[in-house]
């Protein structure tokens, strides 16, 4: 029997038609993918990481291929929050009519708070996703989110300027990810998303030099799925908050696995770059996958493993 509600999940008080969320940095502001399919079939999507000031990002090459994955070193390229409000969000709203997730980056608690404040009046924004885990903007891949105190300061600063749900995006490049998640929860986060990319590198054998101009970059794709799944399992048991699980998700089966590990919703990143129809195909495949594994409603399996 067709049950249209069997894919719905509740993410911080907002219902998603399904748990699928294209991850920030792989989906722009949505309008380009809207040329390929109706993006309103998505649960939501997390838009391109936005900072206070415009950023060109890192020098080229920014991309390297790996076995079952890729490295990117884009470096938070974005036109800055005011340009995003003036030009990107109006274009996005023409094609996407659900609450969107606003991904925000920054270099100090004040900067994060500034950008969130500037975006807070946008009705189209349902959640903030606070990126404290980009490996591409500090020397050597250091991230704010590798330190509990710094995590607490950023989350606290953002919490003070918005009533919308604040989801904190964590890095796997830490000793104890559960500890960082608890620091975010203590500072007032409403949810946790993870994982951001793993710090990685490749060397070009012809030139005998790193492929990526910035030497290191963020590793993503199916190869990182087991690491992501482990992190989601650990974090969802360490905090009392909903978790958006991501990292290498490429199929409906991966989505089910992620949710069994503890994810309430599931981000899809690199898969969108290899195949612009990846999220559509996953959503279409989910009902049959649920049937195959004897699952009635997808929300019933969250954290069931």
């Amino acid at each position: 029997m067709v049950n249209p509600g069997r894919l719905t999940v509740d993410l911080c008080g907002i219902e998603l038609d399904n748990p699928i969320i294209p991850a920030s940095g792989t989906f722009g502001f949505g309008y380009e993918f809207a040329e390929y399919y109706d993006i309103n079939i998505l649960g939501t999507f997390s838009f391109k990481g936005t900072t206070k000031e415009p950023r060109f990002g890192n020098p080229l090459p920014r991309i390297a291929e790996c076995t079952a994955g890729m490295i990117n070193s884009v470096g938070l390229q974005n036109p800055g929050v005011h340009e995003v409000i003036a030009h990107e969000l109006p274009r996005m709203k023409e094609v996407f009519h659900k609450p969107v997730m606003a991904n925000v980056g920054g270099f100090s608690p004040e900067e994060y708070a500034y950008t969130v404040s500037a975006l807070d009046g946008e009705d189209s924004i349902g959640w903030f996703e606070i990126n404290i885990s980009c490996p591409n903007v500090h020397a050597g891949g250091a991230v704010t989110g590798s330190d509990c105190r710094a995590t607490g300061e950023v989350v606290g600063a953002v919490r003070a300027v918005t009533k919308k749900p604040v989801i904190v995006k964590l890095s796997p490049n830490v000793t104890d990810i559960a500890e960082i998640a608890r620091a975010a929860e203590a500072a007032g986060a409403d949810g946790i998303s993870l994982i951001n990319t793993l710090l990685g590198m490749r060397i070009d054998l012809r030139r005998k030099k790193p492929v990526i101009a910035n030497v290191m970059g963020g590793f993503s794709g199916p190869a990182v799925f087991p690491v992501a799944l482990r992190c989601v399992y650990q974090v969802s048991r360490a905090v009392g908050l909903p978790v958006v699980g991501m990292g290498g998700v490429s199929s409906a089966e991966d989505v089910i696995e992620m949710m069994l590990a503890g994810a309430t919703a599931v981000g899809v990143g690199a898969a969108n770059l290899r195949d612009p129809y990846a999220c559509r195909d996953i959503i279409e495949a989910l009902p049959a996958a649920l049937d195959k594994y004897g699952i009635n409603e997808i929300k019933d399996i969250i954290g069931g493993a």
Partner: protein
Amino acid sequence: MVKTVYTVAGNEKIARDVYRMELCGDTSMITAPGQFINIALEGKYLRRPISVHDASGDALTIIYKVVGGGTEDMSRMAKGTRLDVLSGLGNGFDTSVSGDTPLLLGGGLGAAPMYMLAKKLIAEGKRVSAVFGFASADDVFGTDELRSLGVDTAVATVDGTAGVRGFVTDGMPEEYTYAYSCGPEPMMKAVYKKIKTGGQFSFEARMGCGFGACLGCSCKTVTGCKRICRDGPVLTKEEILW
């Protein structure tokens, strides 16, 4: 952009490490010379972006060089192999601004998209000339094909084993109304400095997606940030920051 399936209809070596692959499938989304397709290969996570050499009806030709594992796999593909392809990517060359006697400048693999460009310019009634530059005689391809269209085609090789000794800039005619260029950046930069006319330059970059989503191939231009894959690969002389 359209995601489609192309079937390999031919695959032969035409110069040192350089292959021509004939593909069969819907080419309706190829609307300008200089566009590219992005091919998914088994066991490789990223697609391989390859410029279109020619396209019409349900036939499409690409010319590629074996530079790594992915293109090596391609060189071994048999007739009938089915490929998952994103087709019709990039802006391509704008022929409307060429004037009556445009000049085509191709360096190495950059010669590949010039064939379809020449065909379009000739169909528009223009008199086309070309200079192709290669490292050595063993690398030369595409010149006879271009001459068969009636294009006055000169060759330059770095070691002098074919045509003029030197670079494409050493084989350029005096008179032309516009320059179209594709090749390694140092070559295009030399062309950019030499031409007195307007011109268009087709760039190459390591790409994540090939359709504008990942910002892996962004470059700064006079008119702001551009993505080589989506806003390019062709940029005009006026917008390039050199």
